[in-house]
């Protein structure tokens, strides 16, 4: 199969790549049906001029529901000539598993489109779902407890998490059994909440919106090399976590090196600005494959105050609880335990 690549100079409007007899149009993050309709028609025009080609409209990260896409396909079917329609399809889903309308692409096409999506590089901006506030509030309670900060007000929790009083109150009621309520209405954890913590760890990847990036050059950069480049980005919304961050807080952590760089990205709004990834290394591409070694892992910190610790040389540090989650996510359980036990407040807790 020929290598997948974007066409330098477009022969057809709306066609991004031509691979063998496949014309591919790529429209990332489409949110309106109108965009789908226009793209479909442009691809149909190109197919009318290329009777031997098949056309694929690829919609990575599409916000339009599958039902509405199928409705749009039915409408297009009613007006397009059958000799064009039979060679046309829409592809959605993840790069590794594309779903087609009216049929899935064959394996060779699937590979070609996956390569194209990878070649397009990490997307600069991600649309985010609503933050998981119960997770956030519990994380804050653990943070304050581990660092021996003492009790906190509901107002502090609201402002730091970035949520309303009722949301915080609901979460506190849910975790009532773990809390001590003081006479001045401040709260704090009674002890380290082992069971709740285990639940948080289990859901942390989803709750924190972890995004993984793998090397596509065959020459992956080391975390040290990536850190060097991160220093020059001067982004206040980025902090270093993972093994590097944990070693910042606990230099004696028993681990040598790290195969990946964990980065915490502060994104309290509805989008995450991922433009730093390309500057970090243009060879990084987002991956959904859990078994693929990732060079960079980005964890989204959704609360209002990221609690980053200012560091030296343009780097900030993710808070210790984020680092702890990172170690668990990396399956570095002995190191996670060691790091957790390094906090003075953990004495006699486990």
């Amino acid at each position: 199969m020929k290598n997948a690549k974007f066409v330098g100079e477009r022969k057809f409007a709306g066609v991004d790549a031509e691979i063998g007899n496949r014309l591919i149009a790529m429209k990332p993050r489409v949110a309106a049906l109108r965009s789908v309709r226009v793209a479909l028609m442009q691809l149909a025009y190109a197919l009318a001029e290329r009777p031997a080609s098949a056309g694929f409209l690829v919609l990575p990260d599409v916000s339009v529901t599958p039902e509405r896409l199928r409705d749009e396909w039915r409408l297009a079917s009613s007006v397009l000539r059958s000799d064009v329609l039979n060679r046309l399809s829409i592809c959605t889903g993840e790069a590794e598993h594309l779903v087609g309308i009216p049929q899935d692409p064959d394996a060779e096409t699937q590979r070609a489109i996956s390569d194209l999506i990878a070649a397009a590089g990490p997307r600069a901006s991600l649309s985010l779902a609503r933050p998981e506030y119960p997770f956030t509030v519990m994380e804050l309670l653990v943070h304050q407890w581990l660092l021996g900060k003492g009790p906190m007000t509901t107002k502090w929790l609201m402002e730091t998490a970035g949520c309303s009083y009722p949301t915080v109150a609901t979460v506190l009621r849910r975790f009532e059994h773990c809390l001590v309520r003081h006479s001045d209405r401040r709260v704090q954890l009674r002890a380290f909440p082992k069971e709740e913590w285990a639940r948080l760890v289990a859901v942390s990847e989803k709750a924190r919106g972890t995004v993984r990036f793998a090397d596509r050059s065959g020459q992956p950069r080391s975390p040290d090399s990536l850190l060097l480049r991160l220093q020059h980005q001067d982004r206040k919304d980025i902090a270093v976590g993972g093994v590097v961050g944990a070693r910042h807080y606990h230099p004696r952590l028993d681990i040598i090196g790290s195969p990946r760089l964990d980065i915490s990205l502060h994104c309290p709004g509805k989008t995450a600005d991922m433009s730093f990834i390309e500057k970090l290394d243009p060879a990084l591409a987002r991956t959904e494959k859990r078994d693929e070694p990732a060079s960079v892992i980005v964890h989204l910190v959704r609360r209002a105050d990221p609690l980053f610790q200012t560091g030296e040389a343009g780097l900030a540090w993710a808070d210790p609880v984020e680092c702890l989650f990172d170690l668990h996510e990396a399956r570095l359980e002995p190191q996670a335990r060691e790091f957790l036990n390094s906090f003075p407040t953990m004495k006699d807790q486990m």
Partner: protein
Amino acid sequence: MRLVSPATVLKQIAAAVPEDCRENIIIIGSLAAGYHFFGDNASLMVRTKDADCLLSPRIEAISAGVAVTERLFQRNWQFRPDAKWSTPGNESTPDDQLPAVRLNPPGVPEWFIELLTVPESPSDMNKRWVRLATSAGHFGLCSFGFLSLTNYQPISTPFGIAIARPELMALANLLEHPEIRPETMSGLIATREIKRSNKDLGRVLAIARLSVSRSEDALLDWPAIWQEAMQVRFPDNWRSFMGRTGAGLRQLLNRPNDLDEARHTCEHGLLASAPPTSEQLRLVGLRLLQDAIEPLERSGR
């Protein structure tokens, strides 16, 4: 093109030329890059047909060129005829039509030595020929473009001759090709006709990839030595050259067919032992732009 051992070829050249001319010789091109990156590994070979020898400084180039040519003929190196030249030129041959000194070692048809020199002045970017009158006939010593960058701080070898710095050969190629031009190589590269620009810019990418294999942050060091070499070699117009360093490479990375030609030359050249895909080569180019070319361009503004 044949597979040759860079160290063996360098040793053979050094042994064949007059001892007092060795310091005038700098090997450039794929052989120099091959020696730099895997000269210490006898099992790794370079696919090349020529060993480009740059004679410098310019003021000694003619005398060194004559001495080297005479000595090689004495040692039975053979004139390499081509479609245009079956024998060396003579005193009536115009300078710009003289054959280059291209000589095969005795009994070794696989590769040949070719003599070149640096331009006479920083402002002389055109291809020029200067006559080498030897007892075996008349030859032309060619100089052009940015060759003067390749004799900046060359790297010495144990054989007494030097090799050009790979990053400066890369810079010379980048500056030589501010756009992809249509001229093709005179011969086929592994059955394919290849544009010269794609071959030379492909060499840039190969050098970048090999440099990163050796030290992952190597490209970050390139802008400093690039700027230094340009300021020394082109004191009047280094700044304008800096601004166009990445133009041809950017064009290459945006043209899949040209990039594929570059990949093909790498696969049949310096990267033969681990050929990259076109996409991997494109990523090498993006890293090179980010780590070396863009910082250089910024400092030139």
